[in-house]
Each structure stands twice: as structure tokens, then as C-alpha cells.
């Protein structure tokens, strides 16, 4: 079975631009979470979605938004990019709601570089 997939693998943008990152969860998983990992740090929670509804949001500005589609795939959008948005963006899927109570399965990530 395929694991969590993310696209693109790498992305280079300039300040002020907008970016959309995509994630497909493991088949049967209904919960998707997004994390940002800056170099040398641990991942930081951005969003959690379950059954197309936002269930949790981390401490990120409104420039960050996400959605989940009927097939449970998800997109993360970041507007007005800043240099500090350069990071590895990780998507994780899980079977259930309140997914942090259970094991989460992470994708390989999208590495975003903002110039």
C-alpha cells in the first residue's frame, strides 16, 4: 500500500508569492495534519483536518490556510511568502479524529525555499 504522498518534492519561490502544497493520505485515513519544520528544529503543528473540517490550528498567521477534499486529500496554501517560510512542510495522516491520540504516518515532505 502506498504511504502518505506529498507534492511537489521541492519548490523555490520568491518573497510575496503564493504557494500550494498537496498531500494524499494513506487509503482509509480520514485525518490529515500539516507541520512546518525549520532547519535544525522539530516540526511545528499548523493544521489538523478530519472529514473536511478543521479540527485544530497551531500558532501560525492567517497567511496559512488549508482544506481537505472529499477524497481526504489536502492542500496547504501560504500567501505573501516571507523568507522565514522556508522550511520542510510535512503532512501526516491518521485513521481517526483527534488524531494526535494515535500513531500518525508522515509523508516525505515538501521542501520550500523562499528567495
Amino acid at each position, binding site marked *: 500500500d502506498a504511504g*502518505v504522498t506529498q507534492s511537489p518534492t521541492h519548490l523555490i519561490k520568491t518573497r510575496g508569492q503564493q504557494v500550494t502544497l498537496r498531500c494524499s493520505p494513506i487509503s482509509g485515513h480520514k485525518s490529515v*495534519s500539516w*507541520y512546518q*519544520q525549520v*532547519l*535544525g*528544529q*522539530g*516540526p*511545528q*503543528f*499548523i493544521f*489538523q483536518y478530519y472529514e473536511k473540517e478543521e*479540527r*485544530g490550528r*497551531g*500558532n501560525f498567521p492567517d497567511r496559512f490556510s488549508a482544506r481537505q477534499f472529499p477524497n481526504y486529500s489536502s492542500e496547504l496554501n501560504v500567501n505573501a511568502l516571507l523568507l522565514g517560510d522556508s522550511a*520542510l512542510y*510535512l503532512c*501526516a495522516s491518521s485513521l481517526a*479524529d*483527534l*488524531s*494526535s*491520540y*494515535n*500513531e*500518525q*504516518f*508522515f*509523508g*516525505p*515532505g515538501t*521542501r520550500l525555499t523562499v528567495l
Partner: protein
Amino acid sequence: SQQGEEDPQALSIQEGENATMNCSYKTSINNLQWYRQNSGRGLVHLILIRSNEREKHSGRLRVTLDTSKKSSSLLITASRAADTASYFCATVKWGGGADGLTFGKGTHLIIQP
């Protein structure tokens, strides 16, 4: 903000030796999870220990949890070169199942062949 703090930040040992890394956290938790990350790629879940558990084993891994001290340890026995990676603890606060995992900064483990 990052709740968990792993110690040490980096650890280098010989293949075959045991590796121990520690994690401290600040708030009451529902569970604590350990993840491995190779070369800045995706994280792999290793083990989950709930707040009412004190010790769990999985293969060569042993995790302990001391909620009175707000700390956990991960022991990898008989280390192998393939264990070289960064290891993160992640906590889920009590009642915070929707609030995501709170990760520490990680321990970078190097296994010398």
C-alpha cells in the same frame, strides 16, 4: 513553541553499543510519542506511550515515562549503522487530541561502524 526538549542534542557511539536519549516536557500530557527522521525527510513513528503507562518495549527500543518528573527516555539497544538519524519526542497535551503533536528539537544520533 516547542514543549519537549531532548537531551543530548547530539550523540555519537560505536555500533553495537546502547544509545539513550532523554526528553523533558512542561504540561500534563495524554501521550508521548517518539519519531525518527533520516536526513531531513519524513518522520517515522517508533512508539507511543500513554500517560498511565510507565514503560513500553518494541524490538530493540525501550521507552520509559515518568509523569511526576515530566520526562521520558528512549533506549536503543545493540545499535546499528542504520539507526543513524534524528530522534524526536512529541507530546499530546491532556485533552489536546486536535491540537497536534508538540515536538522537541531532537537528538541527532550517529552510529560509528
